[in-house]
């Protein structure tokens, strides 16, 4: 039990610290790397709760795909860091004040109340089976709606970025097949001595 508690606090502290790193670091690349660490320590928390499948998904999808994609975007964008820093100094006092007030309020409220105990996995089915059963029976409707959201994201991204290139040479197979000898070859009789 002691070990589990120690590991929990370790991962929890890591999550909070790396989340602070995401918003606090000067270099956006460091921010993204902190985000990766935050995802990883959250995955650790999931393992502690016995949700190995979620942990694996978190590592593969969020760390492997999403965060790395972020990293590419951050590195490719030409962001003026000096400008950002100046603006941050301007808005820092106000943002900090609001943040501290909200944090204190949250702390006051959380201090007196307890959340519902997380449901303990009582059934002897494994993770993937339990998630699959929940997703495709009880939560099939939200599941389908979520897939529509992904479809809109896809359509939107293509619609906003796709440009038709006018001078692109495309292969039109039907046109190639429809070509006849008469279209393609022209025979001319060149008088002797007059050819170029």
């Amino acid at each position, binding site marked *: 039990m002691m070990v589990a508690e120690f590991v929990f606090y370790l991962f929890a502290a890591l999550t909070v610290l790396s989340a602070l790193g995401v918003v606090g670091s000067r270099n956006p690349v460091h921010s993204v790397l902190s985000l990766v660490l935050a995802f990883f320590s959250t995955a650790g928390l999931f393992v502690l709760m016995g949700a190995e499948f979620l942990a694996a998904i978190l590592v593969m999808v969020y760390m492997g795909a999403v965060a790395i994609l972020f990293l590419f975007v951050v590195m490719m964008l030409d962001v003026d860091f000096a400008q950002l820093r100046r603006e941050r100094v301007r808005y820092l006092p106000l943002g900090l004040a609001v943040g501290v007030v909200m944090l204190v309020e949250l702390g006051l409220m*959380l201090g007196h109340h307890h959340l519902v105990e997380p449901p303990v996995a009582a059934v002897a089915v494994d993770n993937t089976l339990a998630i699959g059963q929940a997703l495709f029976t009880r939560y099939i409707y939200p599941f389908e*709606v979520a897939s529509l959201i992904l479809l*809109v994201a896809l359509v939107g991204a293509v619609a906003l970025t796709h440009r038709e290139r006018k001078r692109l040479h495309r292969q039109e197979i039907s046109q190639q097949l429809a070509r006849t000898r008469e279209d393609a070859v022209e025979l001319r009789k060149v008088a002797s001595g007059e050819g170029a």
Partner: protein
Amino acid sequence: MAEELLDIHLTLMMPEILVAVMAMVLLLLSAWTHRGGTGVVHWLTILTIGAVILVLQAGEGAAATFAGQFVIDDFARYMKILMCLGMIFPIIMSLDYFRGHAMDGGEYHVVALFALLGGMIMVSSGGFLILYLGVELMSLSFYVLAAWRRDDVQSGEAGLKYFILGSVASGLLLYGISMIYGVTGAVSFREVAAFMGSPAGHANQLLSLGVVMILAGMGFKVAAVPFHMWAPDVYQGAPTPVTVFMSVMPKVASIAVLLRILMEVFVVQHAQWVPIVQLFAVLSMGVGAFAGLVQTNIKRLLAYSSISHVGYMFIGLVTNTQAGVQGVLVYLTIYLVMTMGAFGIILSFDRQGLGEKISDYQGLAHKQPLMAFVMAMFMFSMAGIPPLAGFIGKLNIFMAAVKADMVPLAVAGVLFSAIGAYYYLRVVKVMYFDLPEGSFKVSVSGGGFLIVTLSLFLTFLWGILPGDLLAWTGAGVMVFHH
């Protein structure tokens, strides 16, 4: 497991299925037909939404399916019909706009249909999980639509601004939902309401915090005042037909959700949310009235106008009575009609690249007396001058507030509507008393003419004989038993 599977009645969600399937069919159609298909897609979209309205019209009774995650009743049906009208009118008006601005329109209609679907899912949601998904589907579609004219800097800015601020609002909403889930261990409205009614739910501060966060998130979606910053910029930057979508559809969906969760789920937290919504109402009316005074762009002006209209609707929400809910439904319906009419006029200008600035309307009455008259009527109606429909909307809301012993709120509403009247009348003054500079080349499209005429007719009809409207909304109100 098996018994849960049995609780699926797809016939109840015919309208949603119709919209989703047609959106995907049209997506394929516009991919295959390339550019030439825009017209076909346009008409099929209109047909689809028309069919959905007919299906909704025919439905009756209250039912739920998917273990209570999908709820349908008279209230939901009324709101869905409003949303369908809020989508179909701008689409009818905007075919010429597409031709004029050389916008590729096939996928545009698909995304618009998905936005409608998101709104319908929100209105029919029976739990926080599905509510959030509906909000996301609708918002994501609107972010894309706002940026549709991607070569236009303002449109791109509008899309990006809407996206970033909207994501923050979604975050707030999710945070609130997670608080409520953390305390109650449930996401369905029924279970959360039951928990809140139990002794453990009374005076639980964490629950209140969740309620506040959800209010903030939804307040953003309707552009109620402390969360309104995005609205003027987005309304101005987005292509005009999208501005028409945005000024009606999301507001109907979000106000429907607010009515449902505040009056049915957060009943015990009544003492906590009433002051907040009151504050939203007063601030929205105030900022809408004062900030509208200095606008020079008519789309920005109508953005501030919509902010103040939301403020009036929140008064009806605060009363927490059936009369208040009916006031909100009546106001929403009239707001829809007035907005469609006013934007119909703006759209018939917009094809010449004119019509964005208020000064573009200088002396319109001298050249196009009929058009100026119609625009003036919509402005009078928005200002709440009798005998037009806008007056009836405000009257119902204020009456409900007085009946619920909220006289100060009603007085504030009357005062702010008097201040707001100034900027509506300024548009009328520019059209009638300023001299025209240059000539107007106005061409009203067939669809635009149809919608503007219909809106004008309804504005007069409901201003003088609001009986029908009150009867229609009455059925939807009965869902809330108090």
